[in-house]
């Protein structure tokens, strides 16, 4: 449910969490992103940094510039205006993905678990639009939902200790792309040659909160060609709005 009034939860002496709902929904996330957008547009004095997640915005502030009550007062006013319509149009990002085989090493096991043919899992997965709620946990990692219900799958019982960067994976209702090599409990269906996290780039995360992502199935030769272009700094994904 979306709360009639946001909750302000202290997170120490320098931050407050503005919680707008107790659910994961596009509406709740849009309100969080709209609140963040309004804070940036209106340049609320004393706010130093913001971090959106599913249904809450973590707001860092400088107490020498703004006290807790003044801060929550200002945020309450902005939250009342923070409707999805205030946001600029979402970006649509197309990411190539090589499903199955060596790169998608759990496609067949996931398909067996779901009682579907591997080709059907690929078709369903690549046929959906995914909403990026926020980016985090590891740098550049998008938290996404939008999966067809038939792909809902319990997470792995024994998480891997290493998952290669770029692995496109599913677990529960979520789709995740590992942005750096890390442990993981999601089923790896494929891999994108796109680099989700590049500390040398002006914008180090390829994806942003609010983006819509669609996967384009590619074969291994195209994966290798794009990967070479990515390594040479010659490749950008197709982004439209």
């Amino acid at each position, binding site marked *: 449910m979306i709360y009639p009034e946001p909750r302000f939860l202290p*997170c120490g*002496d320098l931050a407050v969490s503005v919680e707008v709902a*107790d659910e994961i929904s596009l509406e709740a996330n849009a309100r969080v992103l709209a609140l963040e957008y309004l804070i940036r547009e209106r340049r609320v004095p004393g706010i130093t940094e913001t971090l959106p997640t599913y249904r809450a915005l*973590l707001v860092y502030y400088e107490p020498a510039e703004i006290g*807790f009550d003044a801060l929550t007062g200002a945020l309450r006013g902005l939250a009342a205006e923070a409707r999805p319509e205030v946001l600029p149009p979402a970006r649509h990002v197309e990411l190539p993905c090589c499903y199955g085989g060596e790169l998608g090493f759990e496609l067949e096991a996931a398909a067996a678990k779901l009682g579907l043919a591997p080709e059907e899992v690929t078709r369903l997965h690549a046929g959906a639009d995914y909403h990026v709620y926020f980016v985090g*946990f590891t*740098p550049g990692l998008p938290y996404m939902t939008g999966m067809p219900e038939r792909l809902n799958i319990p997470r792995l019982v024994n998480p891997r200790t290493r998952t290669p960067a770029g692995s496109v994976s599913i677990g529960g209702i979520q789709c995740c792309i590992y942005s750096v090599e890390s442990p993981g409990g999601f089923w790896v269906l494929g891999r994108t040659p796109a680099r989700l996290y590049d500390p040398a780039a002006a914008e180090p995360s390829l994806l942003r909160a609010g983006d819509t992502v669609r996967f384009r199935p590619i074969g291994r030769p195209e994966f290798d060609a794009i990967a070479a272009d990515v390594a040479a700094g010659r490749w950008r994904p197709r982004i439209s709005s």
Partner: protein
Amino acid sequence: MTVLVQDAGPLTTVQDLGRMGQLRVGLPRSGPMDRDAFVIANRLVGNDDDSAGLECTLMGPRLEFADARWVAVTGADVPVTLDGAAQPAWTAFPVSAGGVLKIGAARSGVRSYLAISGGIDTPPVLGSRSTYLRGALGGIDGRALRKGDPLPLGRSIGAPAARRVRAERIPTYGDEPSIDAILGPQDDRFSAAGIAALFDEPYEMLPQSDRMGARFKGARIEHTRGHDIISDGIALGAIQVIGEGQPIVLLVDRQTAGGYTKIGTVCSYEIGRVGQLKPGQRLRFRQVTVAAAHATLAARRAALETAIA
């Protein structure tokens, strides 16, 4: 204009005050665990607060200087020698070209800081020279120092004006500190007994602690409705409590978001003290209000301005 790393120590990293504005892409601020000790070291040698220096963990490095500089060591109580002769900590002193500086094993505290006049001049990444090991960025190729590394320095800036910290302002780290913490964001997910345990009982730091988080064991902190939440942002100092009811204080290199309950948050001005706890050492959490914490923060900041004689 370089310093040669003759011996790196177990975990020595380049840090400045940290990387702002990147939480939303999943990058924590990083920077020194003990911010006040770090800032004092910089001020002692005449640097800006944000100049890059070294954070040493338990055991410091051995460094050979190519040109003359002023240096200062603060933080954990460590022996410091220059060409074999003992030097005072919390005090600026000059190093000649060819001098070899050695920082030894911490007698109390964990993290010591070395500032060098002119600062360390590794390439900034996203606006900061701070090393973030898990993200492999900042500092020297995103990693800890290794034997043989050359550390580039900024331009030399001459002798500092004030060179010594007032004796009564030099912290000690051996006791069982009382650490201010504020309830929230998910204190409503804990029982009254669980909250009472957090503030009434001591907690002992475990060896599996690092710049990402400090793990503690002690009285069980009881949940009312399980430990999973809808993932949300993790503030600096968040006291996360998972299944076994034991607290983890999330620190400068923490993950930016997570799905476990956070009963409270350690105040910003206490993070440095947590970073100086040794495994096996205990602390107590003391509950304060946001207003009281802001008053203490202002007082601590004022005290920092008068620390150097």
